[in-house]
């Protein structure tokens, strides 16, 4: 079985020294991948129910540091050579899909194709509110997931080059990406697609 682990991007362990140490431990000890969760703003008081534990409580300390996942993985790409790099998971509505796709494609190129992108709809209502993303329009997440894939070729097969960009006069290269998208097959339901 492939085994990876979450890097310490949250809490007291979220330091440059620990990020490097854990990423290099992964490479040295044979782990297949390292991963980061996605939070932009962490509310100090969380009322939303975390949908992935029995208790409904979030497993991380909301009062600690939380590093940006995209820049964190870009950093880790530069200090590793073998392990795959993953988002578990990017919350699709938080960012513009084309901007996100551009960043994903860049990390993928700079890491020599080691990126795996998990995508989800999110669960933390307080974070949606802080970012000005309406929670009642959770369907928007799915549109963004599809827009993301459409613009950057994140479809069935890797190495697909797609030229569909917002404006035909724009150059957004690199426009290919060897990353993967993960989403729930149960997305037609109202529950969040994946953890974020």
């Amino acid at each position, binding site marked *: *079985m*492939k*085994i*990876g*682990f*979450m890097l*310490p991007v949250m*809490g*007291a*362990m979220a330091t440059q020294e*620990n990020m490097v*140490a*854990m990423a290099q*431990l*992964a490479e040295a*000890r*044979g*782990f*297949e*991948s390292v*991963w980061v969760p996605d939070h932009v703003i962490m509310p100090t008081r969380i009322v939303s129910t975390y*949908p*992935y*534990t*029995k208790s409904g409580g979030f*497993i*991380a*300390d909301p009062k*600690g540091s939380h590093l940006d996942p995209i820049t964190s993985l870009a950093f880790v790409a530069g200090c590793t050579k073998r392990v*795959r790099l*993953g988002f*578990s*998971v990017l919350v699709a509505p938080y960012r513009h899909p084309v901007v996100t796709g551009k960043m994903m494609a860049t990390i993928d190129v700079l890491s020599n194709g080691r990126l795996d992108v*998990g*995508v989800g709809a999110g669960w933390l209502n307080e974070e949606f509110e802080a970012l000005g993303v309406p929670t009642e329009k959770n369907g928007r997440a799915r549109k963004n*997931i*599809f827009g993301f*894939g459409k613009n950057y070729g*994140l*479809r*069935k097969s890797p190495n697909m080059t797609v030229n569909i960009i917002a404006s035909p006069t724009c150059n957004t290269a690199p426009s290919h990406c060897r990353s*993967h*998208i*993960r*989403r*729930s*097959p*149960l997305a037609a339901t109202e*529950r969040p697609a*994946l*953890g974020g």
Partner: protein
Amino acid sequence: MADGWQVVSEAPDDVYSLGGDLKTALATLYQMAEEAGRDPKTIEVNAVIIAGTAEGVLRDLSQYERMGVTRLILDFPSFVSDPNEMSIILEMIAAEAPMEGS
């Protein structure tokens, strides 16, 4: 569109709020894949699990594999706040677990 599917799990028999267990959910996934003209065997299944102890991870590993999980992602709860503690857990797992892709 996606290459895989991901669940979050506290234990092999408790795969968050799917409205069913992982076995049932995977049956639904595979059926949907077939209906979409995709080979279900090509769909990766990730499980994010809480790695409170190395012993717990090593104990549950084969059960996840039998259930169809192809990749485990170890997450650490907030009480693991010391990098040495995290390293010890990871070193123990690396020493004992058969790992693909290394």
